[in-house]
């Protein structure tokens, strides 16, 4: 994997950025209020520690602040209160080096080919062209895009475009990958297969992953831990550990314990979703 997308080993000083045992990323008392004539309290207070190399998923009802959580951790939004850190350093209003974000919407650049899309961030960062070529070629092959390397996004399916966006983020060798419902627009079968690919990437890159999803089975299958959020303002109402081995794939859905995890998540989500819709749980 030294020749691949793994970034942890190749980042100078990465290990010294956080003391051993300290969280890789964390939120302490984080809230987010959208100001205005009628301020909207979207999130929090939230406390969350992500261990280095952990796969953490967040589920919650629509509008509970899941995407806001990603924005705040990424540095794309400033918290109204509380502290956000990444590798021991505060995050506020600017995306720190080492964090990669994949959005729910198609963020591929339509004027660039698949190869140029994936190389985009590396070129803007002034990475050596030979290194750009090496990383992009690896990512194109790894994400199964070799036959489409010269295609434009408009020529690709939704799933393939999302793979391009994931590859574009991964070549930057992020140590924390934030995924905001990246498979939200895909059908169930494609989502399961993309989930397998995501697990493979997670193992290979050894990155920490924070995944926002509305799909309980996706969260249960992919994660080491899952956080269930309340209706707005979003807070964690449950944090559960799945106990899955690191080597895992979508065949987990047939495991006996899988149903128990999704059932527990659903019990929270059902009540919170009813609240979000203005109803009371029966």
């Amino acid at each position, binding site marked *: 994997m030294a020749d691949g997308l793994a970034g942890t080993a190749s980042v100078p000083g990465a290990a010294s950025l956080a003391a051993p045992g300290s969280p890789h990323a964390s939120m302490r008392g984080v809230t987010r209020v959208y100001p205005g004539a009628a301020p909207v309290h979207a999130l929090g207070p939230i406390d969350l520690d992500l261990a280095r190399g952990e796969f953490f998923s967040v589920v919650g009802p629509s509008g509970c602040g899941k995407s806001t959580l990603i924005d705040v951790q990424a540095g794309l939004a400033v918290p109204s209160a509380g502290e956000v850190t990444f590798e021991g350093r505060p995050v506020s209003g600017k995306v720190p080096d080492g964090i990669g974000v994949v959005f729910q919407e198609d963020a591929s*650049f339509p004027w660039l080919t698949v190869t140029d899309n994936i190389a985009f961030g590396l070129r*803007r960062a002034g990475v050596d062209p030979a290194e750009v070529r090496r990383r992009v070629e690896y990512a194109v092959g790894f994400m199964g895009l070799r036959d489409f390397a010269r295609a434009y996004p408009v020529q690709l399916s939704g799933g393939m475009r999302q793979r391009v966006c994931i590859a574009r983020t991964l070549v930057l060798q992020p140590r924390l990958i934030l995924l905001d419902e990246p498979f939200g627009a895909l059908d169930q079968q494609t989502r399961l297969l993309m989930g397998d690919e995501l697990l493979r990437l997670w193992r290979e890159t050894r990155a920490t992953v924070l995944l926002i999803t509305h799909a309980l089975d996706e969260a249960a299958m992919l994660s080491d831990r899952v956080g269930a959020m309340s209706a707005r303002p979003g807070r964690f109402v449950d944090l559960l550990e799945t106990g899955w081995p690191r080597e895992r794939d979508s065949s987990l859905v047939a495991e006996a314990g899988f149903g128990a995890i999704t059932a527990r998540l659903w019990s929270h989500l059902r009540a919170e979703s009813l609240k979000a819709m203005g109803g009371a749980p029966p």
Partner: protein
Amino acid sequence: MSAALARPGRPRGLALDQPLIVLALLLCWQGAYAYAGSSAITSPLATIAYAASMLQQGWFWSNVGATALAFFYSLVIASLIGVLAGLGLGLWRFAGDVTEPVLAALYTIPKVTLYPLILLLFGLGLPAKVAFGVIHGVIPVTLFTLAAVKGLPPVLLRSARAMRLSPRQTLLHVLAPAVLPEIFTGLRVGFSLTLLGVLIGEMFASQKGMGFLILNGINLHNVKLTTAVVLIVVVTAILANAGLLAADKRLRRQR
């Protein structure tokens, strides 16, 4: 792979559409000539022959040069102001929301009613022609650019931030290529309207240029001259527009 990369091709039969349209226009022209007679319009053949002879004349080219110069200045000024104003208003959302309906209303004003004011401001000659061209072309370029920036998917700019691009990099490598096709469409529309403005300007108050030749032909009842100049202007505009349209389609092909 081939299915995923398939593009809709040009429907069969469209290869003949343009020659057929030209033929239909020529037939209409011939019909108009047969109906109105040579005191109103000359026949296609006679006009083409006279236009060809004009192309050999120095006085004709000096008029073409006068129009080309005024048109060039007008187009450059209208494009620069339109693109910069559109980008600024698009990025400053509040100003864009306030200004857009005002610009749309201004766009509908018959610009010819402003001509006396333009003459008072700029006097006779090149500046007035350029100003008249600019006021025709600048609003559509501004509106197209403004709409392009407002319609930009926010996720592209969020991606730029997530990849830690500087504002300059975001402008050059994300915003500019993302809005380029729409801006180009605006420039294409602006091209036609700016030419129209310059020609009208030359018709009203100028001693040189293609617009002046047309009006001079009308005043002297020189139908041959009027029709030939109109033909040359129309053919030039159509060819230029076809070139710009092809470039526009090429820009949009991968979108």
